[in-house]
């Protein structure tokens, strides 16, 4: 299926990725090519096949529900672009 310009804009919005106006058309062409190539998967009969999410044939392990870490706010925020008082900061969200 061809990916049109509107789809690129919508998907970019979902991915929180700003796409400049003049790039949307180019990206639509590139994505159409790639998706078109991927669609050869339609040749494969997958009736009754269970989708495979992981090769690791295992159940997730359990552990005791207890605190194993913490108390290191300075370390946690050390790489933040704008840490304030041991917290992360963002533009005002609620008026």
């Amino acid at each position, binding site marked *: 299926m061809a*990916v049109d310009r509107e*789809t*690129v804009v919508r*998907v*970019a919005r*979902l*991915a*929180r*990725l*700003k*796409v*400049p106006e003049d790039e949307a058309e180019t*990206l639509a062409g*590139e*994505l159409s*090519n*790639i*998706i078109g*190539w*991927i*669609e*050869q*998967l*339609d*040749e*494969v009969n*997958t009736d009754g*096949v*269970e*989708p*495979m*999410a*992981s*090769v*690791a044939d*295992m159940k*997730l*392990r359990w*552990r005791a529900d207890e605190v194993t870490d913490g108390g*290191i706010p300075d*370390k*946690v*925020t*050390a*790489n*933040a*672009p*704008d840490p304030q008082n041991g917290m*992360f*900061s*963002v*533009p005002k*969200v609620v008026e």
Partner: protein
Amino acid sequence: MTLPSDLRDLTIAEARDALAAGDVSARELTEAHIAAIEAARDLNAFITETPDRALADADASDARRADGKSLGALDGIPLAIKDLFCTDGVQTTAASRILEGFVPPYESSVTTRLRESGTVMLGKTNLDEFAMGSSNETSYFGKVENPWRRDGDNRPLVPGGSSGGSASAVSGRLCLGATGTDTGGSIRQPAAFCGIVGMKPTYGRCSRWGIVAFASSLDQAGPMTRTVRDSAILLGGMAGFDPKDSTSADMETPDFEAMLDGGVKGLRVGIPAEYAVDGMNPEISALWDQGKSWLKDAGAELVDIGLPHTKYALPAYYIIAPAEASSNLARYDGVRYGQREDGADLTELYENTRAAGFGPEVRRRILIGTYALSSGYYDAYYLKAQKVRALIARDFHDAYEKCDVILTPTTPGPAFAMGEKSDDPIAMYLNDVLTVPASLAGLPAISVPAGLSGDGLPLGLHLIGRAFDETTLFRAAQALEDAAGFDARPGQG
């Protein structure tokens, strides 16, 4: 033992023995490599060099040894670490602008194991941005050069990718070994391009904890070295159960080196007809035939097998890997770490940060992945790809009823020139056509340098093993290495 005139010509196994015999010190080994790294900066193999740390590691190793407290085979061995492994106190970038300046306050589980084995860290190697690429041309920190050149042609070639910096560093003798990571071929393809041994273990053998995530159901760390024996030794230092990775396999790590010389007498080597892909370079076909003869002459039995869904592995991969990447890379939001671009509100801050922080190939894959997972397309693309993945895994399962390892070429051709494929994403993706199927099935696989192309470039042969049977895989790889006797070295023009 007699030392070579240049200490960098030692293998890890030889360096281990020389260190144990007191013929060389970790400091001498490390100084030789630090000097080589400085002299080879044109390759751009490293994003961050850590010479002070390396010398401190080396001195600590020598002091331990003098005390009779050596930590074993890897104590004092200088290694390079792909800049996808988080290293405590040392910048870790994933070759992305969005992580420039990120200094992890913790150490990945694999590099923790290597530190506890006494290894020396020379620095962090370059890669394709977020490990997305097959030529190491998408790094924000610049392209990496392959130390090899075509005969009579001085144009720089790509080292392959994504572990291109590690491959270039091992090939150019800037370290005795390096770590890589492999999602669809990112260890094996650059190893083939640079004439070294690259090994991807079984999914679950090495912990993923602390490795910047690309596609979590596929990512595996593995060793990049100059010999099969070194590969076995280095994997021994990287592998092992880790409760911090929920898909880490809770099993013993075998002594991979112990069985190396067992030979291949009676071993059943599967030859899949489907790997003779359209447009395969005739030199690669000839090398594959040569590989079959070598193993047969060494006593192995060749078995024709069918892997009928091989052709669909690459398109399935290019849904699954970007889908997982689009989810994994959602964390780069400009709030908790990494680069930030301001915006009028929170959404615009996210959008601006991610547009400025990610390069074109990463953006493209995030968009494909988001598209494949979005409402209305999920069943047609993502679910379909997961079903095809199940069929590919089943193909291997059936094939291993008839054989013990599978022999194929590693890549459809030798290293190409910079810029030669960077305008055509699908042409670039086709580099991984022979390595991706084993990744989707989670199987261990290794590339061994086996010959030279007509214009003097290294070519690799590829062995795929049963899940968690790295021991047999290494044994077959050793037989291949012995028969090939590959001793060509990069001339750098």
